[in-house]
């Protein structure tokens, strides 16, 4: 009797389970125009706060409504929640019509098949693929497949430097090569001041920096088939070079090994470190009380001699459409609106980013000294992070390896080629598929 009851309870549970999952998943339908008058839009948090973002975007959405009669329901999703929200939306089919995604997630999300592919026809609806900067489009999905998203805001890394500290140390201008940077850093690193800042506990940042160094050493981290190649000589050299700024060159303060809350920017703003590699940090410096005339921006250094001239990843935000939207035409119209020259100029100016739209990029506003550095980098020497489906796994695995190496360096343990290789080997083996 007891067993019977238990058995029937289990049967009931399974029945509900089947009912729940049976119709689960966002079926592969390709969108419709059932509700042509409304759209839901998840925006990422680009401004100083969520509230600020709402204030910035709402008038634009009103403008769109006036033009097309489509009402856009906006939700600004904090970065901490965005990917999990998208994941849940993907798994259940219950999501927004249009959304912002971090461009490094593009290939992962593309693999789920939940996003509308931007083939020639869809691109045509928003004015053609040629309107966009190539490197930005390349960061919207796997090579050779229609992108899963359209670039919206672009960013690149720059070397920010403290003009006063440079002057005090007798350095003329920002270093152009890594050798210069180390030499400059050594001049500055004394008496509680340090040459360079790093964000050792921030996995993404670790990846961004080592990826660029890897490119300069000719390492891609993935081969053509999407298999991990973390232990290639170039990758090991790149990671070691980055850690050596602390371990060997001693131009990064040991404390940076644990930074994960943008403390390296705070240190920079306070004049504790003279240089930091970052993307669009101007507003943060201002919030920390640093005056705009006190800092300068320059391109990220390259190796002396003949390295590959890549000095930044393509950072930025893409805009995507869920395939199962009930307002496919409206969604495309909205993407067209958001990527129109006028909106691009306005929004990117407001957010301090660079438009991935060529026409808009030419605007004088993006020719200001610090933005010009970002713009030129983007159009000439930036490369997208590996566009592989398991990109986030790559970030976590290699990012963690670098984080552990920082911890070694900070604790004074030797960082050798062998120890770097061992960490990367472990990271590579933990990559599934």
């Amino acid at each position, binding site marked *: 009797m007891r067993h019977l009851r238990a058995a029937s309870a289990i049967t009931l*549970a*399974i029945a509900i389970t089947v009912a729940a999952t049976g119709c689960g998943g966002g079926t592969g339908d390709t969108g419709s125009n059932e509700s042509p008058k409304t759209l839901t839009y998840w925006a990422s948090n680009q401004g100083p706060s969520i509230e600020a973002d709402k204030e910035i975007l709402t008038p634009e959405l009103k403008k769109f409504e006036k033009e097309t009669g489509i009402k856009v329901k906006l939700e600004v999703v904090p970065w901490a929640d965005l990917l999990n929200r998208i994941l849940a939306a993907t798994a259940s089919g219950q999501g927004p019509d249009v959304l912002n995604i971090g461009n490094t997630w593009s290939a992962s999300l593309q*693999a789920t098949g939940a996003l509308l592919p931007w083939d020639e026809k869809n691109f045509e609806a928003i004015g053609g693929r040629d309107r966009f900067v190539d490197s930005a489009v390349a960061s919207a999905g796997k090579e050779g497949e229609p992108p899963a998203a359209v670039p919206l805001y672009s960013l690149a890394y720059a070397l920010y430097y403290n003009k006063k500290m440079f002057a005090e140390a007798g350095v003329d201008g920002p270093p152009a090569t890594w050798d210069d940077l180390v030499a400059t850093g050594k001049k500055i690193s004394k008496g509680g001041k340090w040459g360079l800042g790093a964000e050792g506990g921030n996995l993404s940042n670790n990846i961004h920096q080592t990826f660029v160094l890897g490119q300069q050493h000719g390492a891609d981290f993935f081969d053509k088939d999407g298999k991990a190649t973390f232990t290639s000589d170039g990758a090991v050299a790149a990671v070691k070079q980055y850690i050596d700024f602390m371990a060997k060159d001693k131009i990064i303060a040991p404390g940076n090994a644990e930074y994960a809350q943008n403390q390296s920017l705070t240190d920079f703003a306070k004049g504790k470190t003279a240089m930091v590699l970052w993307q669009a940090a101007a507003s943060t410096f201002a919030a920390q009380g640093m005056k705009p005339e006190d800092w300068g921006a320059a391109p990220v250094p390259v190796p002396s001699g003949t390295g590959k001239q890549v000095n930044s990843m393509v950072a930025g935000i893409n805009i995507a459409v869920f395939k199962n939207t009930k307002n496919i035409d409206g969604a495309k119209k909205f993407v067209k609106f958001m990527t129109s020259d006028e909106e691009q100029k306005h929004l990117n100016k407001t957010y301090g980013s660079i438009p991935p739209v060529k026409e808009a990029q030419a605007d004088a506003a993006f020719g200001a000294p610090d933005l010009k550095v970002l713009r030129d980098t983007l159009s000439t020497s930036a490369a997208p992070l590996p566009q592989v489906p398991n990109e986030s*796994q790559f970030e976590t695995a290699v990012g963690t390896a670098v984080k552990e190496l*920082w*911890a070694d360096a900070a604790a004074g343990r030797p960082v050798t080629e062998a120890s770097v290789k061992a960490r990367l080997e472990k990271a590579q083996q933990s990559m599934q598929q």
Partner: protein
Amino acid sequence: MTATVTNPEVDKSATGGTSRGTGGARRRLPRIPDRIRQGGLPYLLLLPAVLLELLIHIVPMVIGIVMSFRQLTQFFINNWGAAPWIGLDNYRIAVDFDAPIGEALLHSFFVTCVFTFFSVGLAWLLGTAAAILLQESFRGRGILRAIFLVPYALPVYAAVITWAFMFQRDNGLINHVLHDQLGITDEPSFWLIGDNSIYTLIIVSVWKGWPFAFLMLMAGLQNIPRELYEAASIDGAGIWQQIRKITLPSLRPVNQVLVLVLFLWTFNDFNTPYVLFGKSAPESADLISIHIYQSSFVTWNFGTGSAMSVLLLLFLLLVTAVYLILTSRGRKGADV
């Protein structure tokens, strides 16, 4: 009749309705025409709980178990039904202790055991000490009670981020005191990376967790009748003896549940390590919950993450069963 209150064992045996014939009132109970009601009533009373548990806990758990047998990667997340069945492959990956994934899982399992042991032990110890010391009224008791519940009232995110702030190497309070003011360490230590991380994690977890133990034990103390202490004190028992002979044994039923749930929650705790260390914890503080998060949400491979969870579930079931058998000795007979 007051004496029975304190002795849970005695009460317990009376609860099942099995004990008839001890008192006049009791004997009449079965005669009430609710023999029929008796049959259905308990189920009726349980119904809302059963339905909710099914919907929110049991069914998702069953789905989780089903997921563990499928290759539920990002390629299939959009359409779960199409994810291929792969039998025990996910489990094989998880328990292959020679390969990095299994090896790391085993490592984080041991870390979690150590962490749980110290965190639960200390939280329980502090909670018991505070509850007993605050049992008698004295000036300031009310305010202390409120203060002790503060960690429980603060939002987890805010509390843990504050600790992280305090444990910073260069600017944090902890190193300011240990290094700058007391000069205990030669060099400022790292607390958020490296080998010290496990201490940080335990301290924060105890700080968050002990007020709960305190709260439950405080409520438990209210049920101990005064007369027992009075009788004991007439017999010449001092306060320490009273605590040992009366207070602690009387708390046993509360403790049985309290320690068990503290253990389960601490073992599965996700929020504390996640806010403290982010997506990847230092090796010394690599808790299993973070590990499972990495193996599911970060890799988007929910099959492997589910398999790990099922293994964890089996382990915790085993521990709980042993625990309940050990602690319930002499308390049997009440439950069917």
